[in-house]
């Protein structure tokens, strides 16, 4: 029994696409997990969504022009990140404006997609961008992801402490001489990379599962940055590898990897919600005493 099981996996791994998938997954997972930690901390989850949707237009536009959609995606997300960085704080809370731009980007993507498929090309390309194409990842893609991941992680490592400070308390950080604005822009550029990589695995529409869910789950379980980041990485790895394994073990010829990943992500997030509710029900907070209120007036 175990023998056939192992035999199954050995045969699987002889295929290049399987190898690529299992190689790409951890590369992307690590980057998205760590970036996701900061995204959740900075309450910028909409930015990830926005970059993905705008990237969709870039990916499909590139396909129409005959360029690699990965390249198109990278370029578009980088441009979008620059745009968002330029707008700065004015974006905060502007749900309507952001939603309109997102939808328009998706509309453009749909347009390019229908042009692309009408010219006789394979209709499943669009689905790949929307829902992930980890099973069609090429060796080159893996290499490109690896390089961008390393660059991203290097920059993150360098900027770790100032970025953390600026994310938690921008006002004080600014006062201490940290260039908060510049850091925000750099962060968005890094996010563009991370988002493009996530889209490769799980597609534009399900980005949240890989970019936000691991970090959000981790931050529910612990407050300490390093622990949260490590936990986030472990979770992201479990989701992506887990999704792949389930897909190969599970349903027949169609392998909806992204479904499994999103299911695992949703499951763990809600489990963590449950756990944190059980741990501390609406706690009783001690009433403020005048002494703790500085010098309050009556």
């Amino acid at each position, binding site marked *: 029994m175990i023998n056939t099981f192992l035999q199954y996996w050995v045969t699987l791994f002889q295929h290049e696409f399987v190898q690529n998938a299992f190689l790409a997954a951890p590369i992307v997972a690590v980057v998205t997990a760590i970036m996701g930690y900061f995204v959740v901390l900075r309450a910028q989850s909409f930015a990830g969504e926005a970059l993905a949707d705008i990237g969709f237009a870039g990916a499909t536009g590139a396909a129409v022009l005959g360029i690699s959609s990965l390249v198109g995606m990278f370029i578009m997300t980088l441009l979008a990140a620059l745009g968002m960085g330029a707008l700065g704080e004015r974006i905060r809370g*502007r749900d309507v404006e952001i939603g309109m731009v997102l939808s328009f980007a998706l509309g453009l993507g749909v347009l390019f997609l229908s042009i692309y498929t009408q010219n006789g090309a394979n209709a499943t390309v669009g689905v790949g961008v929307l829902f992930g194409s980890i099973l069609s990842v090429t060796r080159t893609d893996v290499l490109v992801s690896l390089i961008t991941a390393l660059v991203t992680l290097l920059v993150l490592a360098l900027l770790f402490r100032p970025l953390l400070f600026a994310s938690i308390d921008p006002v004080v950080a600014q006062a201490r001489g940290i260039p908060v604005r510049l850091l925000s822009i750099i962060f968005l550029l890094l996010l563009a990379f991370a988002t493009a990589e996530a889209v490769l695995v799980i597609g534009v529409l399900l980005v949240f599962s890989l970019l936000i869910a691991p970090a959000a789950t981790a931050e529910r379980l612990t407050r300490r940055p390093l622990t949260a980041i490590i936990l986030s990485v472990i979770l992201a790895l479990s989701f992506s590898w887990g999704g792949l394994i389930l897909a190969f073990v599970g349903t027949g010829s169609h392998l909806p990897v992204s479904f499994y990943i999103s299911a695992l992500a949703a499951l763990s997030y809600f489990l963590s919600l449950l756990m944190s509710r059980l741990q501390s029900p609406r706690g009783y907070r001690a009433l403020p005493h005048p002494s703790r209120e500085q010098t309050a007036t*009556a």
Partner: protein
Amino acid sequence: MTSVLDKNNPIVQLEQVRIQYGKRIILQDLSMTINEGEFIVMLGPNGAGKSTLLKLLLGLLRPSAGQVRVFDRPPSRGNREIGYAPQHRTLEADLALRARDLVGFGLDGHRWGPGWPSRKRTALIDQALEEVDATRFADAPIGQLSGGEQQRLLIAQALLTNPRLLLLDEPLASLDISHEQEIVSLVTRICRTRHVAVLLVTHDINPLLPAVDRVLYMANGHSAIGTPDEVITSTTLSQLYGSSVEVVQALDRLFVVGAEI
């Protein structure tokens, strides 16, 4: 400062009221009356139960123990004799309404259908706007108005049913000094000319000292009610808080200071 205690026409009566959620006691042994036309200020730190008391009077909560009577009846929702103005907030989406639309809710916001414009309705709203000195910006979108102006609109809205009791939840919060003064004079004027009882929740008694009749100070689940001189003293407050509190009078103002840091 006229004393209305001799009028003695109680419109709100609380007897040994206790409010608790599970093990957490918010208020206990609260007994007090509010008389017609009285100006009462509610003070105390956050979480002390001030908003809870307002909700009680509005019929949104039931006490865990004790008796509450408002206008000689148990509190009920939708009582048009009570006007309620919450704290103003600045909302992006308040491009949706003009000032007079917001005030108009006070008149018929709870009725079915989209409503039909009528001259009588417009006149009533104009009157309310006039009373709070908001006629100038009656047609401006709410989102464009300052905090003080929005607060005035909320008060106008509350006045449209000609209430006998006005509940104001932190109307002075995040207002600068001049706007603060405007609201205080406005509320005082309304209290005296309309003979409306006012229960105003705030953090700082000082802007209201000239106008207030009595103070209700809530802390630690306990409360004390009386004139400012009676309640805002080191002894009374120390008793309330259960630890050492100093009240310092300086520059015509009262300051409450905790003894330990």
